[in-house]
Structure formats: C-alpha cells, structure tokens
C-alpha cells in the first residue's frame, strides 16, 4: 500500500506543482512574509528556548546523574534518582504537605476574595477606600509579608500570642509546633493571595450586567438566591480561571516557607518546591533535584488537565 502511494505520481504533488508554477510570485511573497513573521517571533522564541525549553531539557538530562559537591555531573545512575525518590519517606511527606497546603489555601483564598469582592461591589460610600485596602496584599512581596507575619507569629514577642495572653489563653507556638505551622503559613498565604483574587473577582462582578440584578429583583429573588442562582454561574469563568491559577500558585509556593519555617518543624511545612530547592541549591544535588522538578511538572500538568476536562464543563460562559 505504502509503496504504491510512493511510486504513483501522487495527484496531490502534481497539483502542488501546477499551483506552484501558477502562483510562484504569490508564493515567494508569502514565504517572505513567513520569514518576516519568524524574524519578529525570533526574540521571544530565543528567550523561551533559553529560559524555558533549555532548562527543561537539561533537567531531564540531569535527572539521570548524580552531581559532585560543586554541582558538576559525577556519575550516571539511570533511573536510580526516581527510584530513590519514590522510596523515600521525605518525598511522600512533601507531596502530602503540598496537597494539604493546596487544600488549605485555595478554597480559603477564593472564599475570602469573593467575600471581599461582594462587599466592595456594593454601592456604599467609602467603598473605593476599601477596594484600595483589599487589593493591598497584592502590592506586598512574598518575602516582605513573610517577614511581617514572622513578627506576628513570634513565640514570645509576637502580637498573636500577646492577644491570646490578654484573653487568658495559653500561647501557641505558631511556627514551631508541627500541628500549627502549616496552618499558620496557610493563613498568611490566604491573606497574601486575597489581593489578586479580590481584584479579579471584583472585575468579574462588575462585568455582570446591571439588568440581571434588576430582573432578579423584579422576580422577587432574595440576595442569597440571586447570588447562588445568578451571580455564581456568571462568575464561574472567573472562578475557574482563579482556581487553576491558585492551584498552580500553591504548588509553587516557596518564599513563605523559606523565610518562616525552612520546611520545619519536623518537615511539617516542607512543600514540594522547598524540597527541590533544598536538594538542588543547598545540598547541590542537581540530579535528584531535577528528578523532583520533573515529577512536579508532570503533577501540575496532570492536575491542570483534569481541571480542564472535568471542571470546565461546569463553567458557564455567557
């Protein structure tokens, strides 16, 4: 079958040839156009290749090796890095911690952003000021807010324990008690993410046409009913976007763990990215670090695909 196709004067080729001769001038013009397009694209392709594609390929390559104390390739180990990872308790622990962290921060961050957006969307006086205040966390960098919260969480000098003391409650070791550390960091992260969620959700709310509310009111729907039956469905594309972005963001959270707990106590806040950082840039094991990075990449890819295939069906585009 194949050979006949190859040997026969393919009609398509003939057609192309006649097309070519007929439109030679047009073709060279379009070729030129293509070349120009690629020329314009070249900078971004080069940057993409250099900073995304090359590191990705290099990571895959490095994941088959061990590196020496200076981070240079020292020994080929095949799939040993992956095998060792899958057998290490630390790896599974960091996956579990990451999962918990996502579950703690994503719904909380979305809910807080939604509440603030709903509040700021009302026409009350002075709301512009609140819109400003609510979006402030966005303007503060992770490291800055981590340092601020570190002071709030401080075991003996912190404000939280001061208030607990005033209320006659025992002090909580916010960051040094393994039962509390992840919760403390999650609270801080929710606050930090609320700014972005708030802005996106507020603009989503403002995108809902006024007459929707009016007709709901005319039909006698209460505010809760309006919210659930009208606003939420209309906001669902926005919420879906935020969900994807927040999940990816939570998987990549690093700064707050690095500054507040360094993954401790007892690995209770050692999220996956922090393990990668430790493995690669503290321990200088780029091989195992790369193996972990690849696993993280695949994990996020899978999760995003799942969200797109399953959840997107529930999204209502107007």
């Amino acid at each position, binding site marked *: 079958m194949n050979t006949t196709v190859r040997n026969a004067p393919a009609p398509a080729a003939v057609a192309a040839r006649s097309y070519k001769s007929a439109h030679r001038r047009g073709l060279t013009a379009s070729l030129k156009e293509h070349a*120009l397009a690629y*020329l*314009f694209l*070249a*900078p971004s392709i*080069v*940057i993409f290749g*250099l900073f995304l594609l090359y590191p990705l390929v290099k990571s895959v390559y490095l994941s088959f090796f*061990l*590196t*020496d*104390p*200076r*981070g*240079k390739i*020292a*020994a080929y180990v095949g799939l040993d890095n992956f095998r*060792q990872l899958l057998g*290490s*308790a*630390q790896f599974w622990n960091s996956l579990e911690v990451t999962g918990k962290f996502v579950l703690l921060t994503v719904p909380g961050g979305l809910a807080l952003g939604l509440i603030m957006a709903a509040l700021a969307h009302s026409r009350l006086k002075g709301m512009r000021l609140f819109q400003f205040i609510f979006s402030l966390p966005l303007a503060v960098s992770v490291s800055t807010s981590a340092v601020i919260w570190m002071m709030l969480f*401080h*075991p*003996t*000098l912190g404000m939280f324990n001061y208030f607990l003391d005033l209320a006659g409650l025992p002090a909580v*070791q916010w*960051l*040094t*008690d*393994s*039962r509390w550390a992840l919760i403390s960091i999650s609270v801080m992260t929710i606050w930090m993410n609320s700014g972005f969620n708030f802005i996106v959700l507020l603009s989503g709310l403002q995108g809902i046409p006024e007459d929707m509310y009016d007709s709901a009111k005319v039909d006698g729907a209460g505010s809760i009913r309006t919210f659930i039956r009208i606003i939420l469905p209309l906001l669902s594309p926005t919420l879906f976007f935020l969900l994807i972005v927040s999940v990816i963001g939570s998987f990549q959270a690093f700064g707050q763990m690095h500054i507040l707990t*360094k993954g*401790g*106590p*007892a*690995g209770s806040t050692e999220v996956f990215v922090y393990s990668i950082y*430790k493995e690669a*840039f*503290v*321990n*200088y*094991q780029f091989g*195992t670090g790369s193996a972990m990075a690849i696993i993280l990449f695949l994990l996020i890819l899978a999760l995003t695909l799942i969200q797109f295939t399953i959840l997107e069906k529930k999204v209502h585009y107007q």
Partner: protein
Amino acid sequence: MKPKPFKLKRSFLLITILLLSMLASACGGAGGNSGTGTGGEASASNAAGSGSAKSGGNAAPAGKTKVVWWHSMGGELGTAADQLVADFNASQDKVEVEAIFQGTYDESLNKMKASMDSKSGPSLIQVYEIGSRFMIDSGAITPVQQFIDAENYDLSHLEENIMNYYTFDGKQYSMPFNTSNPILYYNKDLFKAAGLDPDKAPATYEELKKAAEALSKNGAPASFAIYGWFMEQFFANQGAEYVDNGNGRSAAATQSLVNEEAGVKTLEWWKSLIDSQAAINLGRKTDDTKKAFVAGQVSMTLDSTAGLRGIVDSVGDKFEVGTAFLPKPDGSSDGGVIIGGASLWVLNNKPEEEQQAAWEFIKFLAEPQTQAKWHIATGYFPITKKAYDEQIVKDNLAKYPQFQTAVDQLHASKPSLATQGAVMGVFPEARQIVESAIEEALDGSKSTKQALDDAAKAITDKIGNYNKTVKK
C-alpha cells in the same frame, strides 16, 4: 511608500540582531560557568582578576593588593569584625581588605558555590566548621599549609585542640578565626527565687531536670533551641563518635551513628524536659531562645559562647547571668566539647599575589592582640594561648567571670576523635535531618528511637550518594 517599510524592517533587524547577540553573550557566560577545568580558568582569570580589582569602584589605592573577605558575622559580631579589618588596613600599606557580610554560614557557603567558577567570588571566606570536608573536596581552595611551609610559620603558640579540628591527613587546610563551644546560660536571680544554689549550676542531665522542674513551677522553664550542633556536642561530651571510620577522620565516613546510645539517651532526656513542661520548645532559632532568656521568660538555655557578650550586654542589671559547662549524662566522665565556629579558607582561583595577601590578613587575625580584642568583643575564645597574657583579656575576665567558662571547658576537653569533631561532606544536610528528628521526637509524632533511626538512615543514604560523587 516603498522605502518606509524597508527602513522599518532594517531597524527591526538591527534590534533583533542586537538582542540575539546579547543573549548569545549571556549564553557564553553560562557556558563558561558550567565548564569543567579549574586550573586553566584560574590562570586565565589572573589578569582580569587583578585588573578589575584596580579598576573597580571601591578599588584599593594604587600599589595595594585587594583581598575580598566574605564573612557571616552579623550584628555585634559584624561590628567587631569590621573593626579588625579597619585595624589591619591601617596597620600596613600593602594589602587592602574589603569585608563583605554574606548572611548566615549556610547562605554564604551557597553563594560561594554559585560563584565558584566565576571571578566574582571572594579571595578569602569564612566557613563554618562543618563545611570543612566540603571545602576540601571542592578542590577550590589552597590549603594554608602551603603558606605555613613557605615561611616556616610557627604554629606552636596556637591552641592545639582548635588547630586539630582543621587538620586533615596531617595537613592544615584552613586557619581558625572564631571558635566557640556551647555553654549553659542560667539566670542566677531565678535560681535564688526557686530555692536553688545560684553558684552551683546543674552539671548532669538529672540535675538539670530537677532544677528545671523547680524553676518551671515559678513560671520560668528552660528552653533549648532545636539546633543540630547541640546534638553533636552532646555526643562528644559523652565521648561518642557521630559517624563511623573514626568520626570520618581515619577514612571517609560511610554511616551515621546518631541513633546510638548517646543520641537516644540525650533525646529522651530532652523529651522528658518538654513532656514535664520543665522546658518549652521555642523552635530552631537560637536567637529566639536567647531573646526569651534575656527577657527573663526562660531560666536556662544553651547557646554558643559567641553570644556571651551580646547576652551580658542586653541583660545589663536586670539579673545576674551564670554560665556553666554543657551538661552530660550521669556517670559519663569521658569526652568534652568540640570547637565550633568557623575558619578562614583561601580560594585558589585568584592570583598568587592576592592569595598571599589573604594569608597576611589571616596572620594578622591570629595575632595575640587581635584575638584578645576579638575575644572580649564577642565571647569567641582566642585561638592563640598568648592572647590570655594581654592585659585587656585579664581585665575583662576579672570584670566578667562568665568568659572563663568557655575557656575552661575547652581546656578540660579530653582530646579524642570524638572531641576532634565529626567530618562528613553532607554535614549541613545531616544537621537539618537531625533537627527534624528532634522535632519529631519532641512533638511525639515518632518515638525517640524511631526518629533517630530514620535520621541515621537518611544521613547514611546521603553520605552514600556523596561518596559516589567524590573520587579519591
């Protein structure tokens, strides 16, 4: 109409070419970084290195060789270090030292790793004691033994047990600068209030527990930071080795011994303090326990002698600070403390002239007068015995008898492989793993033995990987 788009195209082309060439040069730099040769690059960098030193913004005055010194002395320690540098720069006209604070020991070491193949690294770096094996294996340093041999520098006036730590295979690799050991700090006023003898500090685990229980009834428990260094010290204080093969000194270590009896005994005692609320857990930062101690919220704590000056100064007249030896289990008579702190390493990718200049600075820092000033400003003990003959040291000891504790503890330590200190290339990671194990045991998520067994296994695995990558 025609020339216009052509012009546009050309300018775009120009911009693109410019961008590409910029990227290409960045790429070239990166390629150089990942290259392998060290010797070749070192000699190639010679000319550029000294050239940039002279043309740089804060370049040394003409004729002076510039030495860039990375250190990790923050706060009051940093002020003291800067003073020493100023003294040195004023003392002669050949060498100019520029001191750069690079964050904690961990941070500084990581920055050095990242800079190793470029010219932006330091000529001299302060590295904590547990980074020694890594520094040697990295092949990036010139052992100070070379300078010592070249001029027959006399080492006999230096403290033997300090020099011992940095001696590997009979060779001096780095020069100690700031050395410390852990001591017990206690609040004498709180001792009196609890009916304890303020002049008799607890010396054993059992005594410390009894004292802590009495003190905690008055609302001021003990608190030790979860710091892996303390565990290492508790091992040495029982004469126990931390890794196999003679603490990694007779041959490369292959196995962690952290789950041996010495570790279990120590962690169980620590846990019993927490469980009975005789001690509270304030986390890994010694800075937090130090603050709580200074504020009088904590009656006893462990800390390095390096913190002595800071603690004595910030406590002021609030209460009387007592210092004592690191406690040990009852009936344990062997051992002693390992010297901690850091030493100075000369990097080999700088011109010889610059390395020699770094050595001049090292010699200055080791002088009795310098060490005496450093000692009273910080609490680190002098690395040279002659420093004790300096008047300022005598005056200081008379005024602050607390400074004597660390010195006595150093001299009371029995020389052995245990007190010489463990050596392994993955020490910084091992320390983190042990800290995690202590946390797991203290918060009850694992039994003491289980936590230590898991830690030992994890460290042994890391050592195995490391040994695979280091060819002897």
